[in-house]
């Protein structure tokens, strides 16, 4: 029982990072109808910028804040400079551009930060020494893990307030629902999309720093698996549902953790265990999507005429 709690908390912690990156994907999907393949590498680039600032002596939190601000501008520029011109040519072009951006940002990271190939040491945001844990219900809950989970939950709560309670959030929801009608009520749809890209980039910068903090390391390949799992989490939750992204991400983390810690003396332990944790997670997603093609919380549009 103690172990079970432990595994669940570990799963929630890593899952919260999937949830955060999945939120970034959902923000862009709702505005454009496309999956942003570059989400992970945008996060990687921001994380390397954070590393560089910190390496030059900027305190970690300030480095993350500066990097997030730069990501905001960078995300907006990606929309204005790349996605929008491509989208004018063809509806599918932005997908290809995003794949190109994925490659480009990865290569650029290697070029600007030559040592990132082997991995750069990255400080944790929270106390992470062996003694830094609290004991709850007998399970050892690492302060670092609790911290990551808390940051993600606060970020998510802020995003919900943004979506549900602010004018720009309302505008984002109208664009997601019906871009033509949004224009007709006077919503500057282009500016809203630009803001969505900027926001997704900021989410990436935060998620990347959390992930690098847990790994105490950032390398060129760090964000790729995170992106894949986050994309799976977003699909599981329903690509247009922010709440779904969070639940999808957390469940995926927990499934991975439980499968990864599957006891060796239980049946089928050759098949279920640390080596197959991601495979099993994807299998479960596949089954869910067979039953609910638009994901757990995705809208299969309600419409009456």
């Amino acid at each position, binding site marked *: 029982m103690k172990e079970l709690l432990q595994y669940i908390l570990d799963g929630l912690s890593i899952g919260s990072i999937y949830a955060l990156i999945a939120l970034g994907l959902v923000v862009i999907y709702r505005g454009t109808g496309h999956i942003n393949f570059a989400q992970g590498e945008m996060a990687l680039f921001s994380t390397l910028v954070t590393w560089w600032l910190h390496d030059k002596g900027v305190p970690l939190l300030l480095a993350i804040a500066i990097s997030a601000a730069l990501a905001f501008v960078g995300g907006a520029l990606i929309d204005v400079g790349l996605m929008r011109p491509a989208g004018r040519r063809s509806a599918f072009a932005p997908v290809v551009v995003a794949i190109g951006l994925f490659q480009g940002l990865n290569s650029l990271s290697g070029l600007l930060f030559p040592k990132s190939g082997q991995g750069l040491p990255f400080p944790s945001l929270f106390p992470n020494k062996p003694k830094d844990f609290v004991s709850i219900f007998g399970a050892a809950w690492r302060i670092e893990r609790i911290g990551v989970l808390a940051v993600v939950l606060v970020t998510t709560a802020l995003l919900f307030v943004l979506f549900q309670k602010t004018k720009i959030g309302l505008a984002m929801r*109208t664009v997601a*629902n019906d871009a033509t009608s949004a224009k007709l009520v006077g919503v500057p749809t282009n500016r809203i999309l630009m803001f969505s890209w900027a926001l997704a980039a900021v989410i990436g910068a935060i998620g990347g720093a959390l992930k690098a903090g847990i790994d105490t390391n950032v390398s060129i390949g760090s964000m790729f698996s995170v992106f894949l799992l986050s994309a799976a989490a977003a699909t599981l939750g329903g690509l247009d549902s922010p709440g779904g992204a969070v639940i999808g991400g957390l469940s995926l983390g927990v499934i991975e953790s439980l499968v990864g810690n599957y006891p060796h003396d239980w049946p089928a332990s050759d098949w279920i265990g640390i080596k197959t944790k991601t495979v099993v997670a994807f299998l479960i997603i596949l089954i869910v999507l067979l039953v609910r093609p638009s994901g757990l919380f995705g809208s299969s549009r309600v419409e*009456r*005429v």
Partner: protein
Amino acid sequence: MSALLTVRGLSAGYGPIEVLHGVDLDVQEGQVAVILGANGAGKTTMLRAISGMIPRTGVVDFNGQSIIKTAPERIVSLGVAQVPQGRGTFTDLTVDDNMRAGAYVRHDHEVVSDLALWYETFPRLKDRRSQKAGTLSGGEQQMLAIARALMSRPKLLLCDEPSLGLAPLITKALFQTIQRLNEQHGLTVLLVEQNANLALDIAHHVCLLETGLIIAAGSPAAIASDDAVRRAYLGA
């Protein structure tokens, strides 16, 4: 009396296909103007050209100001609201959020009191304010589309075939609502319709649009007595 909307030689279309071939139109302040036309005559194109949703050439003056080069979201804030064909409500958003989205271009503090005013005018919407718009009936969605447009405090309301897909009784109630908005709130309306009988009842001025050209214009009485119109639109 002055023209709130002046259109001269307006041409517009989609890509290489021109649908409107230089139409002229005046909408007087405080009146209901109706454009009658069959399917494919260019009625929707005309409204979309006025609201800036598609590329257009010619003259479009609103309230004494040229809006031919103005972006659609800016045209809304100048006071032109469009109720699109098929209603265009935000189906995943609640009725309340639809209404608030209608007020997007406003920065004053009277949005809440306007919301109360239009809920009073459309009590059905008030009953359903926290429901998703997609769950409303066709007639209710049309009401919502109009109420949402009113939330921007327009001087001119463009209505694209509001009767489409609605039962006759509901259509009748809808036209009464539009007439009331015109008479009680002084709202200027430009309506495009196929349903000539109802539209002629509430119109002050009628234009006949055929294959992208205005072929006749005048008072409802004059248009209704035109033999060609009677044959084509009034079934007599």
